[in-house]
């Protein structure tokens, strides 16, 4: 029986990009369904009734939601080019860094620095810098977080390689200074230039416009309180 694999995503979602990268790295064929989150399709609501979000991977009719859960599913189902290491301790470390990326790095950079201004932004920036330093330290002696090749943590943190420069341009401040974070800056470049990755970024001008609008709206809402 032919495999039926569908990925529900939006053109801009960095979480969905993780899945695109993973499937392409594994050489797995799939169909893409683009969603408009202001007008969610009945299929999306049926496949992800709990969160109603993208990405959702539907494999032979069975849905999996939450990007890091989907990545582990992909890694366990298509075992070539493994994303997670074999050793349980190394796997635990990989899961730790992926979670750290989502819970701390993403939260402080997006919700703390990018969507704020003034004193709140300054404080969030200090926190974000602390988190980035942990990532910098973790990269010592490594080309990628996964070692010699791209792995689970690189896919989880990969959004940094594209979004940081977009955030820097829109918000008008430097977040990843190559002097302060040389390894992280080098990783971001290397990751962004990697074959599968560089062919799959969303259009930069569209992202700039989208995030400019989002930032303006958030700042306006905060100012009117």
């Amino acid at each position, binding site marked *: 029986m032919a495999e039926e694999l569908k990925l529900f995503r939006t053109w801009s979602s960095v979480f969905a990009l993780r899945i695109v990268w993973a499937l392409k790295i594994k050489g797995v064929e799939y169909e893409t369904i683009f969603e408009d989150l202001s007008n969610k399709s009945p299929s999306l609501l049926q496949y992800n009734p*709990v969160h109603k979000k993208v990405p959702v991977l539907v494999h032979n009719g069975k849905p999996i939601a*939450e990007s890091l859960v*989907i990545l*582990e599913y992909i890694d366990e189902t298509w075992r070539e080019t493994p994303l997670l290491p074999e050793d349980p301790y190394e*796997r635990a470390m990989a899961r*730790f860094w992926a*979670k*750290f990326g989502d819970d701390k790095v993403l939260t402080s950079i997006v919700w703390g620095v990018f969507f704020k201004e003034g004193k709140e932004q300054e404080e969030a920036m200090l926190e974000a810098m602390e988190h980035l330093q942990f990532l910098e330290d973790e990269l010592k002696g490594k080309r990628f977080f996964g070692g010699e090749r791209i792995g689970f943590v690189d896919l989880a943190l990969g959004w940094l390689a594209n979004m940081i420069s977009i955030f820097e341009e829109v918000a008008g401040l430097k977040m990843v200074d190559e002097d302060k974070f040389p390894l992280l800056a080098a990783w971001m470049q290397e990751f962004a230039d990697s074959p599968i990755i560089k062919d799959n970024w969303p259009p930069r001008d569209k992202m700039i416009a989208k995030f400019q609008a989002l930032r303006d709206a958030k700042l306006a809402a905060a100012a009117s309180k």
Partner: protein
Amino acid sequence: MADEIILLDFWPSMFGMKVRIALAEKGLKYEYRDEDLFNKGPLLLEMNPIHKKIPVLIHNGKPICESQIIVQYIDEVWKDKSPLLPSDPYHRAQARFWADYIDKKLHLLGARLWRTKGEEQEANKKEYIECLKLLEGELGDKPYFGGENFGFVDVNLMPYFSWLYVFEIAANFSIEAECPKLITWAKRCMEKESVSTSLPDHQKLYDFFLQLKKWHGIE
């Protein structure tokens, strides 16, 4: 060589409870150390420098942090006894999804329950019960979330039930009528020694909660 396992924990912590249950399910001997969270010890700070939080499992000198990650680690290392995650990738994904849902939703909502009053608290209660009902739907008629056997989702949810006793008193509500299947499920889980020996006594937890409210300046 015998495994050396140390658990840095704090007895009322729901996250710590998950790890205790997992270790007990696997029949593992370990050294339990209760941390003073107002005066964190050097070992905790050394083993979890990033978050400085419990629980931390130290296995032969190597630390693992974050409760869900620790439980998966325990399941993978001691894979021959009482497997917690199913073997099929799809069912594993479902188990991870629900464990993630429990951590994201119940934890936040539970905290809101006792920190709010009046209308806000009523709204939080409603949302909390909705979440439990969703979980109850996922349980269905199975004896455990893991099916015939106690599994990953069961490990993740039971600790919230030990705190549910406290929330029901604090926010003046009961889930008995709303989620009868979950109550039955919780009782079934408590019959397991791995669960009953890992969860604190209700009264002790409630006394701790009263202390916690004082520290937060809440009446």
